[in-house]
């Protein structure tokens, strides 16, 4: 008989959970101390979880500066996979996984999917990008672990996505909210009503922030239940926290992660209910444990118990970022990555503005470049070549496909002090 829970640990009593966390944390310290980065940063053991607050944070820049293997805790031959951020050279971060890490990750994702109601009989169409990005492969392994029929559709190619849904009667999809809205336009053009003509019943929406209104809209357009998920590649990827059928916050799997919320300014611990920066520690990671990682994500912990019976605490939707990280089509990107490439093109120099907007629900980057007298020689071919070069450089380096708009000199805003070079016109 099928149960409500994938794993008994989901309903473990809080004091038992804390004991398990302390045991796994000390094991994590032991592993982490084998890496160059953590060797001298950690004690041998701690006697209480309360002592964790005295351990230094790990930041994104620590990950960058320990590239490529400063945080590796096992011999490299034990590693079977890596995932990497889409950084330009020198700014990339890399996460290594042993066989057991991949296994634990798949199990957490299977647990999350099972919680929302996915079963072996389901057909899961995974519409997230496969590759270095963790969204695609993360759910793929989880779905196979659960035993659902898994279609590795990956992202893009909307016509094929629709065909797959129809031909194989997909019941569960994993999709970015903006792509779900965009795809609906195509359904209308094809005269397909997703509610009556398809068999969809569950959607996992992730990889970018979206509102409760957007969730409701997608649910009614497609006739399904949409679930919010949270993850970041530093903590594996998807499967860190997931919504249960109650849909009031996402359960953080606290047998696998220690969840803290801190004041972004002072780093002081905050209580449940207070909004702050999410800090996470891996408890099962072998290849590359990460301790007290500053995620940069702002959220709060829901006080109180969840009616679903799970004892793992829930976090709210992500309210924002402590830094200027952008999420473009589900991919994390820092403005500096775009700016560095633009500044390397002499004709562009400092005269640009990055605009982000939604076109047919999809993120679109428009880069405005001033045609200053110094670069203007009355030649259209020269200007068009400049546009092509900017697009090519950005495509090659950070995999984005911007539109370039040439504008008249002195038409872009000049701000005093720190220039505002990124304008995000997307409504959250």
């Amino acid at each position, binding site marked *: 008989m099928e149960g409500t829970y994938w794993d008994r640990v989901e309903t473990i009593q809080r004091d038992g959970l804390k004991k398990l966390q302390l045991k796994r944390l000390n094991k994590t310290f032991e592993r982490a101390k084998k890496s160059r980065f953590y060797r001298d940063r950690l004690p041998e053991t701690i006697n209480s979880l309360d002592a964790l607050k005295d351990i230094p944070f790990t930041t994104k820049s620590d990950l960058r500066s320990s590239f490529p293997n400063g945080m590796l805790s096992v011999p490299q031959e034990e590693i079977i996979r890596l995932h990497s951020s889409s950084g330009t050279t020198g700014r990339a971060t890399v996460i290594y996984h042993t066989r057991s890490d991949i296994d634990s990750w798949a199990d957490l994702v299977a647990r999350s999917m099972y919680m929302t109601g996915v079963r072996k009989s389901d057909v899961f169409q995974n519409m997230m990008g496969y590759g270095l990005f963790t969204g695609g492969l993360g759910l793929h392994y989880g779905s196979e672990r659960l035993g659902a029929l898994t279609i590795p559709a990956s992202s893009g190619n909307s016509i094929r996505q629709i065909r797959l849904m129809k031909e194989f009667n997909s019941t569960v999809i994993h999709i970015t909210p903006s792509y779900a809205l965009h795809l609906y336009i195509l359904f209308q053009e094809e005269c397909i009503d997703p509610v009556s003509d398809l068999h969809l019943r569950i959607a996992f929406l992730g990889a970018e922030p979206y509102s409760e209104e957007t969730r409701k809209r997608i649910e009614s357009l497609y006739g399904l239940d949409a679930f919010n998920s949270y993850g970041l590649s530093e903590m594996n990827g998807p499967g860190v926290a997931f919504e249960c059928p109650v849909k009031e916050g996402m359960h953080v799997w606290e047998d696998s992660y220690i969840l803290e919320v801190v004041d972004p300014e002072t780093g002081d611990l905050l209580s449940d209910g207070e909004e702050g920066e999410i800090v996470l520690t891996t408890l099962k990671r072998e290849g590359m444990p990460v301790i007290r990682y500053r995620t940069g994500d702002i959220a709060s912990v829901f006080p109180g118990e969840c009616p679903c019976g799970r004892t793992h605490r829930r976090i709210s939707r992500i309210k924002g970022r402590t830094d200027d990280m952008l999420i473009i089509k589900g991919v994390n990107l820092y403005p500096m990555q775009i700016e560095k490439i633009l500044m390397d093109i002499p004709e562009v120099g400092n005269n640009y503005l990055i605009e982000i907007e939604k076109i047919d629900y999809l993120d679109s980057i428009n880069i405005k470049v001033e*045609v*200053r*007298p110094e670069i*203007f*020689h*009355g*030649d*259209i071919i020269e*200007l*068009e070549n400049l546009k092509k070069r900017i697009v090519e450089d950005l495509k090659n380096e950070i995999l984005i496909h911007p539109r370039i*708009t*040439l*504008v*008249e*000199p*002195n*038409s872009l805003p000049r701000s005093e002090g720190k220039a505002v070079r990124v304008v995000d016109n997307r409504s959250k």
Partner: protein
Amino acid sequence: MASQVTVFVENKPGRIARITRILGNNNINIRAITISDMGEYGLINILTNDPDSASDVLSKEGFSVSRKYVIGVIMKDRPGGLADIAEYLNKSTINISNAYGFILKEGDKAVLILEVDDFDRAEEVIRKGGFHTLTEGELHNI
């Protein structure tokens, strides 16, 4: 040598009005104007009686302006007049990147303005062919 000014403009309302008003206020007379439209932007080519001043005043108003030498060829205002020149240039393998023309107020003459890749050779070839090319001064006075 005759020259035109080329101005970079965004494709938004009022840009041509603004440019021509600046020229008018500075007493600069426009002989011909053409636009190369690229969608979100365009290049406006303006032939005036005073390209130096035209270039100066537009630059001072903040526009990106480029001076370009062009060849002005006098031709007869009659059917086939343009074909005579075009055939001759083709035979001499002169490549034309842009061309426009206008009729002179007096007489039966027209002016063909040519933008060419190899300016020096083109001018020489045209002169050798017996065609009359306009000097800056002549352009000023027509």
